[in-house]
């Protein structure tokens, strides 16, 4: 099937099997390889994207559900060369190691901050519970997200 959707602010027309994984369509048809495949069964969160403002695992999302949708992938998080405050904090606080889980972690964190601008550490942990990091870097990831919250609060104050 051919359908239209908005990916990272750009209107695109894509053609794929209606049951194809959104993950594969984004990577192969749209050329957006920032979205990673980890487990391929919804356990690890590496393939997370925002679909109509909701965090979803793109490996479990059929292409047909992208019809007329607004999608944001990791490539759409920065504004040009200006990194998102979450990305900056991940860099500075060592939140990224091998990098496979990082796109999903960043999207889950961005999604959390949209819904809950002042999360507690417990809320950060719950929001990232669906994202696995096999470099065992969770503490630095949590610190990165909490630092991003502090910077966002300071910039809004």
């Amino acid at each position: 099937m051919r359908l239209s959707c908005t990916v990272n602010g750009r209107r695109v027309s894509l053609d794929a099997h209606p049951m194809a994984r959104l993950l594969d369509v984004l990577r192969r048809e749209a050329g957006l390889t920032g979205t990673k495949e980890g487990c391929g069964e919804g356990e690890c969160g590496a393939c997370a994207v925002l679909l109509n403002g909701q965090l979803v695992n793109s490996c479990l999302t059929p292409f047909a559900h992208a019809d007329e949708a607004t999608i944001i992938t990791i490539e759409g998080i920065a504004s040009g060369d200006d990194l998102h405050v979450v990305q900056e904090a991940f860099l500075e606080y060592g939140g990224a190691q091998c990098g496979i889980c990082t796109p999903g972690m960043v999207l889950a964190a961005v999604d959390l901050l949209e819904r809950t601008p002042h999360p507690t550490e417990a809320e950060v942990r719950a929001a990232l519970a669906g994202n696995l990091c096999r470099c065992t870097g969770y503490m630095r990831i949590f610190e990165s997200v909490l630092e991003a919250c502090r910077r966002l609060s300071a910039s809004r104050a």
Partner: protein
Amino acid sequence: MSTWLEGVDLVTPASLDEALTLLASKHGARPFAGGTDLMVQLEAGHLPPTRYVNLWGLRELRGILESPDAITIGALSTYTDIRASELLAREYPLLLRAAEETGGVATQNRGTIGGNIANASPAADTPPALLVYDAELELRSSAGIRRVPYATFHTAYKQMTLAPGEIISHIRLPRRAGWRDYYRKVGPRRAQAISKVCFAGAIWMSGTTVRDLRVALGSVAPTVVRAMEVENALRGRSVDEEIVAAAERALRSEIKPIDDFRSTAEYRLRVAANLLREFLSHSR
């Protein structure tokens, strides 16, 4: 294109009526909602090749409605929808507990309560809560609507009283007051895990006497189960150590956990008994 997409199709109807017509007219056509279970089967090459009818987006199957004697939940309500409902939080808190315990945020945004029931996993997290709330399912097909008590819905492992072409459209929960609820899921880790044992209970006390109660468990039998023998051992009794011990014996004879890759029968029995004791200690 993956080879397992051959023979699979996904069609998107514009209305519930059209969906039911598609499900009725195409032999073997099956419903597809948020995809959190079916897409895993697809990628594993286990999804039966047939036509799937895309229910996602059908507004007739969404929403949580209130009437004087019941709350009706659209089967396409996601875990996120359930977690956001103040009505459910007030009257059916175990459903929120179950929704919180199911997967991470991304799964909660896509997984639906109807799908959780129809996937018929004995390890699902919402069914034990639905059992203690005496849920009724509203089933729809092109032939009409019927209601069945959820307690009779699952008949054997992955078997249910759902006719071809029929879908779960709504979940109806009768309203009641004065009951105390309990829910606890025990899994290998606290987040995003499949349960080893899941226990839901509700109890209505008059002093120290149990006027009525419901006990339901997941992951201890081929289906989620309501523990009727446990309920019978406790109903009308005053909760003391002797009665608790009798209830525990009833539980141990009633549930049939197995050894599998997630846990052992012995561990599941012991944990289930401990959860029963915790539930009863909270009720006093």
